């Protein structure tokens, strides 16, 4: 097991090197002049040159790349000009916010989509199957920023049951002591019910926005995969042996249908991180997506490179976890290695 793990990690190294080089080059190719932007509206050409020199942007590209790699090997991702902070501490502060939101949205959509997919497959052609199709089509056709604004309009502005879309916590509430960076977990660990409720209610609307978007692929894959498994011989045998309906569907069929669902889950998680950017904008969520977009608008290189790198590492870890989970779900995978 350990050997496989190490082997897998080693294969990710070329991918990481590629990400470092490409993200560096891409940010330099972007139009826009960082120095002119940050020298401000009143800058003279001399002032812009001064800023350029201070930022080290006057040096040739290979030299800039060498110093970038040197810094990187010391764990230094550079300075963000838009927030004025080291990129590493920005990412550390913001990644948990994005991760909490994405995971919450994913779990929420799993809770709805998987049962929905199973029921739709078991009762193919029934009302629930049609409802499932309608819901997922609607979910995937609505862009997230639109769903987000709509939810804010209905639940905050009109019905007034949702808190103000002001990020992770109400302005007057204070954040729980940081352990994991996930407010829900941290407030539970601190046994602080009020903060838990406050952060949960802030998380609900953006989480639902993401969940609606993620419903479609999960529900559709669950349904398709269940349908194919249900028509297999072993299911018929199980039924014929007089096993209970529940046992046939959940223990025999669903477990076998799970592999494609888990694979899809990995993909859904990645594109939820992408969709996050817009949701974070709408809900003033202090996450990593809105951070990267703001940096991109200002052609602020360091945060963009840091963001791409962090995302690459995240995807690699995610894929690793999914591969490992295959072994747990399917004993044949264990045997084959």
């Amino acid at each position, binding site marked *: 097991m350990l050997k496989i793990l190490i082997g897998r990690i080693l294969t990710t190294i070329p991918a990481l090197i590629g990400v470092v080089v490409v993200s560096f080059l891409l940010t330099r190719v972007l*139009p*826009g*002049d960082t120095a*002119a*932007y*940050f*020298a*401000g509206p*009143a*800058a*003279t*050409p001399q*002032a*812009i040159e*001064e800023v350029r020199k*201070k*930022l080290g942007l006057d040096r040739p590209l290979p030299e800039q790349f060498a110093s970038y790699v040197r810094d990187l090997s010391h764990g230094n991702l550079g300075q963000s*000009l*838009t*927030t*004025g*902070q080291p990129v590493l501490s920005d990412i550390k502060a913001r990644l948990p916010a994005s991760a909490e939101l994405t995971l919450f949205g994913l779990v929420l959509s799993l*809770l*709805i989509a998987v*049962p929905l997919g199973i*029921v739709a497959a078991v*009762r193919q052609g029934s009302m629930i199957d049609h409802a499932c199709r309608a819901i997922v089509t609607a979910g995937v056709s609505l862009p997230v920023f639109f769903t987000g*604004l709509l939810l*804010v309009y209905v*639940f*905050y*502005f009109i019905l*007034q*049951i*949702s*808190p*103000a*879309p*002001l*990020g992770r916590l*109400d*302005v*007057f509430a204070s954040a729980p002591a940081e352990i994991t960076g996930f407010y829900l977990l941290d407030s539970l660990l601190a046994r602080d019910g009020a903060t838990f*409720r406050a952060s*949960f*209610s802030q998380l*609900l609307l953006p989480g639902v926005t993401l969940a609606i978007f993620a419903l479609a692929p999960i529900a559709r894959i669950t349904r398709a995969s269940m349908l194919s498994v249900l028509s297999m011989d072993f299911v018929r045998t199980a039924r014929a042996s007089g096993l209970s*309906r*529940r046992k046939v*569907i*959940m223990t025999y069929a669903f477990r076998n249908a799970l592999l494609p669902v888990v694979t899809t889950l990995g993909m859904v998680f990645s594109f939820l991180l992408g969709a996050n950017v817009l949701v974070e*904008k*709408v*809900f*003033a969520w*202090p996450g990593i997506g*809105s951070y990267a977009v703001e940096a991109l*608008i*200002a*052609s602020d290189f360091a945060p963009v490179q840091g963001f791409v790198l962090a995302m690459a590492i995240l995807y690699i870890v995610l894929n690793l976890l999914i591969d490992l989970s295959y072994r747990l779900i399917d004993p044949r995978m264990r045997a084959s290695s």
Partner: protein
Amino acid sequence: MDRRKFIKTAGAAAAVSATGVSAPAIVTSAMAQSRAETLLIVSESGPNNLDIHGVGTNVPGYEVSWNCYDRLISHEMKTGENGAPYYDREKFKPELAEDMNVGANSVTFKLRKDATFHDGAPVTARDVKWSLDRAVSVGGFPTFQMKAGSLEKPEQFVVVDDHTVRIDFLRPDKLTIPDLAVIVPCVINSELVKKNATAQDPWGLEYTKQNTAGSGAYKVTKWTPGTEVVFERNEAWKCGKMPAIPRIIWRMVPSAGNRRALLERGDADISYDLPNKDFVELKSNPKLSIISTPYSNGVQYLGMNVKKPPFDNPKVRQAVAYALPYQKIMDAALYGLSKPLFGASAAATTQPSWPQAHKYNVDLAKARALLAEAGLADGFETTLSFDLGFAGVNEPVCVLIQESLAQIGIKTTINKVPGANWRTELNKKEMPLFTNVFSGWLDYPEYFFFWCYDGQNSVFNTMSYQNPEMDKLIASARSSAAAGNKAAYDKSVEGFVDLAYTDMPRIPLFQPYVNVAMQKNITGYQYWFHRRLDYRALVKA
């Protein structure tokens, strides 16, 4: 899982979310208390640096500096055209200084003896000198701004004794005193910052980027970049009337729609960067007050590159000026929230002030005749560029201009330049036709013209306009202002305004408004030359 069980689980999930949603309705009395004592500001973006002397400090950062640091002097208030408080360009009031004595070659300030920095250290003349030395030495924007008032060398700032500072003039300049009342010459706790300075960073810019080290009415107690800034009142503030609001929370809310929703629901107290359309609609909301004030010394204009044909011909430029849809721009792009700079009557005389309306009105026949005189009866093709960072206003303005110019045969292609690229493009001075805004902190016509029309061809002379006659008029306005010769000054100002409107290298479109929306219980908003909020005057009832 059968249908009944499925529905049951779904019901349970719904119940969980219902309890979560109702939670914020329970507001404790302590929370209500702190709400009453806290001002919640929402805006699109926040500071990237708490110190205006920093490298690349953005405009929201200026607001922090203004409220957390004191200057030697500041401005009195008067009532503006719209009835709201407006800074008085002519009247100065002491802030850290208790007395100002202007001589022929220098100005002497006596400092308050009771003023202290946030850490309790007394404010001394050495701090003042160190801070002014820093402003003229760090380079970039602060040094540039100091230069605008002939404040250029550390030798100009002299410590006379612990509480007396003298500033020597390099040359007579009417802008020296006003330039000491802008945001840049703020007084910094020199001992504290020196303790945190390093060999590579002798002015301690890294420390002041993250911490406020001033004597001002507020101090930053928490700053989460890109998310929020929290200010607490400095209870020991001596340089003015104690501010009414103990705590300010400034939250960044990127979505304009949500900023508006927060205001309308009464959750946010103030917001000032909403689209014009929202401000117009909010004006009819009885729960909010909206204050609109024209930018002082600010103009959005259509610039033409006079170094390149066909705009090197004044007749072409005048033809364009006769073909712009000024009123349509006011109505459709700005929703009326701007001051018109067109439509002066033919008989109107030029005033010694700036900005003022020109006499060009839409007259397509005249525009065509002028083009024909320039030998371009069939028109020509060109590109019209704008800054995407301000697309909300720029895009409709450019589309309207494009439509209108097409009627006299000028075909334009619209070129949208990303915000990060705009300054680079402007600095190249190659765009033939573009719209842009210039506004100066120092509200003097000769200041505007020196930067925008003078033959030294500064960054702001985006048209590359050079005319010796113009330079002579600007120079004479500056020298007669320094000498206090009002008659000669007025004559020069009227002269350069007339020349600018005859030669028309740039066509003023309108004077933009600063719009601020706030709850009815918030009062005391003041318009300042820097157009940011002054928390010290705000009151929450």
